[in-house]
């Protein structure tokens, strides 16, 4: 049976899917009306974000109804798209092309480990194996001019686009906990949902109350009011959604708070990278040029942070 409605559709995941679609519909309508009422407000970024969250919501629902492997392949493709975008923007050399190929080939391997639930292999593959492999391939090419930049950039891109994002997929391979029925699917939905809400909340708080700039050199639209308001709202929402997680009340609150802060960090880190590459100002003005990275920047940092918080609080290091 490929298309059966499994038992968990009646449970927490179904509730969350409904909430998620509800919020997405609400957000879509809200930004549409807001754009109509106040055409001066620049909501392009927010609208694009909502659109990409729609895509993700559909993918996650498809995975819930069809097969979990859909999720692994989709998140793997997300890693691929992020990596392709970063490589395209970076100052690499023609001599790095073979190492770039190896970096791409690391994606299926890492997601295979995540799918099989081989925890140690999953942990070691990128930061140890690929960390050695990539420089070795570069050296074998025999071109040493500019090789330091290439070594560091290639491995850093691998860490961000593959290692960090693959934690999203590994959530699905975590063993079952007694008395917790939502499982990895619930955790994944919780994380994506909290990250999304955090982005939106920070934006809304910043737009309405924002005065004091938090780091004008990196991201001129980020304010202290938006940051604090967003993180606290996220923490409260996380507290109410704790039925998707194995956490107790205070744990859910704390985890959502930390995820909120991590989401902010992801956002500004990617902003800084793009600014250094000279893309920040052109990126949003030319239509269709905002890449996938702009959409999922916060998720790259929140996923490993959330994963290890789950690992520590719920599994007590026993996987």
């Amino acid at each position: 049976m490929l298309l059966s409605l499994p038992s968990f559709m009646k449970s927490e995941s179904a509730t969350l899917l409904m909430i998620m679609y509800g919020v997405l519909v609400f957000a879509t309508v809200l930004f549409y009306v807001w754009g109509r009422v106040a055409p001066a407000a620049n909501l392009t970024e927010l609208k694009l974000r909502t659109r990409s969250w729609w895509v993700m919501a559909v993918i996650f629902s498809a995975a819930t109804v069809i097969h979990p492997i859909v999720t692994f392949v989709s998140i793997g493709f997300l890693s691929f798209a992020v990596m392709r975008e970063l490589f395209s923007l970076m100052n690499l050399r023609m001599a790095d092309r073979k190492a770039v190929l190896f970096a791409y080939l690391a994606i299926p391997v890492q997601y295979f480990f995540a799918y099989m639930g081989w925890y140690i292999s999953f942990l070691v593959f990128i930061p140890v194996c690929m960390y050695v492999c990539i420089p070795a391939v570069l050296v074998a090419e025999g071109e040493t001019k500019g090789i330091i930049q290439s070594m560091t950039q290639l491995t850093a891109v691998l860490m961000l686009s593959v290692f960090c994002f693959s934690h999203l997929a590994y959530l699905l391979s975590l063993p079952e906990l007694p008395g917790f029925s939502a499982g990895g699917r619930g955790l994944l939905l919780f994380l994506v949902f909290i990250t999304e809400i955090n982005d939106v909340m920070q934006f809304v708080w910043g737009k309405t109350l924002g005065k004091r700039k938090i780091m004008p050199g990196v991201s001129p639209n980020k304010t202290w009011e938006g940051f604090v308001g967003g993180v606290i709202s996220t923490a409260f929402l996380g507290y109410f959604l704790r039925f998707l997680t194995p956490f107790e009340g205070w744990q859910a609150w704390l985890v959502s708070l930390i995820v909120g802060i991590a989401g902010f960090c992801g956002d500004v880190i990617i902003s800084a990278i793009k600014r250094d590459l000279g893309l920040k100002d052109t990126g949003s003005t030319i239509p269709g040029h905002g890449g996938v990275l702009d959409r999922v920047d916060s998720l790259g940092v929140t996923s490993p942070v959330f994963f290890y918080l789950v690992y520590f609080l719920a599994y007590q290091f026993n996987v």
Partner: protein
Amino acid sequence: MKRFILFLLYRIFGQFVVKGLLGISFRNTQHLSRYPQFVLVGNHNSHLDSVSILTALPLNIIEKVHPVAASDYFGNSRRRAFWTRLLVNAILIPRQRPQTPGDPDPIKLMEDALENGESILLFPEGSRGKPEVIQPFRKGIGYLLREHPEIPYIPVYMKGLGRCLPKGKNLLLPLKGEVIFGEPRFCQGNTVDQIVKEVEFSVKFLDDLAAPMPNWDRLEIA
């Protein structure tokens, strides 16, 4: 039959590979449907250039657009010429004007195609060269458009494709690139040189629309 092969190759397989996997994006493709017949003129850095332009074409004209390929390279064996004609829908022309009477004339071959109502895709740089470096345009395009001022030309500018598949390399890498089409226009100049200048400028002008993209060749030691 040929139409079906081209449809399968470019509309199905090409869309998936070129857009989805390699990440090459097309801009202003609406310019391709304005006139039934045209001469596409582009810069040339990679074998991917013709493939991605064919992928961008609307289905109803896909078999009418013929990339122009050098016969000394693509026609050096019978088999290669056959596959190039079938899969890329190409016209093979010599790079030089006829040296001895009886040799095929490249301009004449292109004119024949235009007179049959077909469109052509021409890379006036002559060869692929280094990525992101535009070599001076050769004069063939000038002769062609001077004889056929009633046919519009469409400038097309490709950026980043020379990183995906540079000259002399076999490794195809997924990296973002752009194919930008300009507005179709009729040549203004009267002499060959004027037309060549005009076309060259209209191709280079499209660079302003392209997203910034680092040149990977800058550190390469020659």
